[in-house]
């Protein structure tokens, strides 16, 4: 009888300690999860911020300004555009094989300003 009681006492104690341990563990994991969530939110916010910044750097107004000032480019128009047929269609015409057309920049400039 005494032995049984002892066994049961040990069992109760073990279960109680395990419960405390589990509670602790769950809190710990919860806090870790919380932290991870906060970090993910912060990263998402950073990401959004970076996307916006990237977009702000790539707005047509900025791109055009840089293209005109730094690269001396100008808007394309049909007069300086070569329209190429899709390969399947062009292949049927037999027009593209073995030939490469190069467009020369300086010669285009001599062609005159865009109207």
């Amino acid at each position, binding site marked *: 009888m005494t032995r049984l009681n002892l066994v049961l006492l040990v069992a109760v104690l073990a279960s109680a300690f395990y419960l405390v341990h589990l509670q602790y563990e769950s*809190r710990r994991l*919860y*806090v870790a999860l*919380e932290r991870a969530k906060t970090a993910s939110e912060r990263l998402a*916010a950073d990401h*959004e*911020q970076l*996307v*916006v910044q990237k*977009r*702000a750097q790539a*707005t*047509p*107004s900025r791109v*055009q300004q840089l293209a005109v000032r730094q690269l001396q480019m100008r*808007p*394309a*128009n*049909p*007069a*300086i*555009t*070569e*329209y190429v047929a899709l390969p399947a269609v062009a292949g049927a015409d037999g027009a593209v094989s*073995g*030939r*490469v*057309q*190069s*467009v*020369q920049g300086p*010669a*285009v400039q001599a*062609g*005159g300003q*865009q*109207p």
Partner: protein
Amino acid sequence: MSRSIAYSSSPLLTSATPVWRSKLIVAGLALAFLGLAGRAAYVQVFGNEFFQRQGEVRFARTLELPANRGRVLDRNGLILATSVVAQSVWAIPEDIDLNHPKLPEMAKLLELPVAELKRRLNTDKSFVWVRRQVDEPIALKVKALDIKGVYLRKEYKRQYPEGEAAAHVVGFTNVEDVGQEGVELIFNQQLSGKAGSRRVIKDRLGRVIEDVREVVPPVDGQDLQLSIDSKIQFFAFQKLREAVEQHKAKAGSVVVIDVQTGEVLALANYPTYNPNRRENLSGEQLRNRALTDTFEPGSTMKPITVAMAMEAGRINPQTIIDTSPGRYAMGGFTITDTHNYGVLTVEGVIQKSSNVGALKIAQKMSPQEMWDTFTALGYGQKPRIEFPGAVPGRVRPWKSWRPVEQATMSYGYGLSASLFQMVHSYTAFAHDGSIIQPTMLKNSEAAVGRKVFSAETAAAVRKMLQMAAGPGGTGQKAQTVGYSVGGKSGTARKQMGKGYAANKYRSWFTGMAPIDKPRIVVGVMVDEPSNGQYYGGLVAAPVFSETVQQALRILGVQPDMNVKPQIVAETVEESI
């Protein structure tokens, strides 16, 4: 004699203790236990709710989970508006030492004068915003100063990467992230989303340690994809701005509508504002003129007059109209042309933009017929577009028209419309006689029109518009490389008080391209050009030309006209 003391026993212990004393103690202890048991029962059973609540009040907190406001995107998915996290600096004034050595540094970081900062902090309130929505790096620096009583709070700030080019379309939100203008206002509900909440227990350091009940997740606002193409929008805006500046004009607007789907590809006004920096804005900058300002459209109305007369079978494109001597007296007014054009065909009336010709055509119509067509084309009615502040313009009921008014309406005076209405009505010519429903939202389905003219009439008017923009026409500067265009210029005197101002004009150009199978309708309006030139064909048409050029290229429309290529391309034999 010695007295012996027995150390093994004590007289005290041998004294008989009265039994009642021990019983008293036992009873006392029992009572105490009873008391504890009673208290325990009270706490655990009877008063349980109260204690639970009190406990929760001390540790449980409801946290709001803010919903992200949806983004506004252009038709290609590029961001026009989005919310980013911005920290707001707030303070508890009574905790702050106004002579703190780091206050000037904080003032500098927040771009506030020190005196202003101290004025804000020197108050009886228990909470003040020091500065709202500062950039993250600055907020971190403020935090690093570690001034007692100064705190940060996470808020959202709207960013508009496209800036002033799309300002009128996108609009803006206030500091609480509520839409105030433009698309942000009209679609506020859809963009807003719904905040969620969670109930948590916090420890003494304020860390969340447990959820008390299920989390109500926030519902983020929906993204909104507009029909606007940010490239076309920018080009249109840029050309408009250049024209307004070049002609020293007061203002201008441009509208581009895709005829196939009814989508508004661009809608820009100048002057405008930068939605990211909204200090000292004036109404002039804020107004979305293309939709909110109505004017007499002038000659841009003539094609409509001609179309309705053709539709009614009163004229055909070759009908001869005698406009000589370039003047026409009627009801005490004299209506004049800039030159005496003599005998013109109907096509010639449009090409030369003859007022006398237009009024003679209108005389073949009844007021009611004209009114019906104007109404069918959307004049005098608020455009059905997802946009705040659109105005209906003015077309008076036909019964009250005097003959001279009917005549002046034929060339665009005596009725008013916004640029948007003007462009919208021209979709009837571009879409084979059916007027289409415009939309600000991306829509890939083909627009279904409402029939106003027959396809033949529409085609005939398009031909006239092409002539008007061609050699001998008033809108030659509307021509553009590679694409056939057609359109009508307009130059309207501005109304001042009861009469018309002598030297204040409004220049219009509305047209379409490519003319045989139009893809876009573009309208341009420049208000009070005052640098010598004021004709619509000289001021507004160039903006039209360049906008059409870029828009069609961006839309991938192949040129329909032969272009003398300026490309020097040589054939190179490639080794095999």
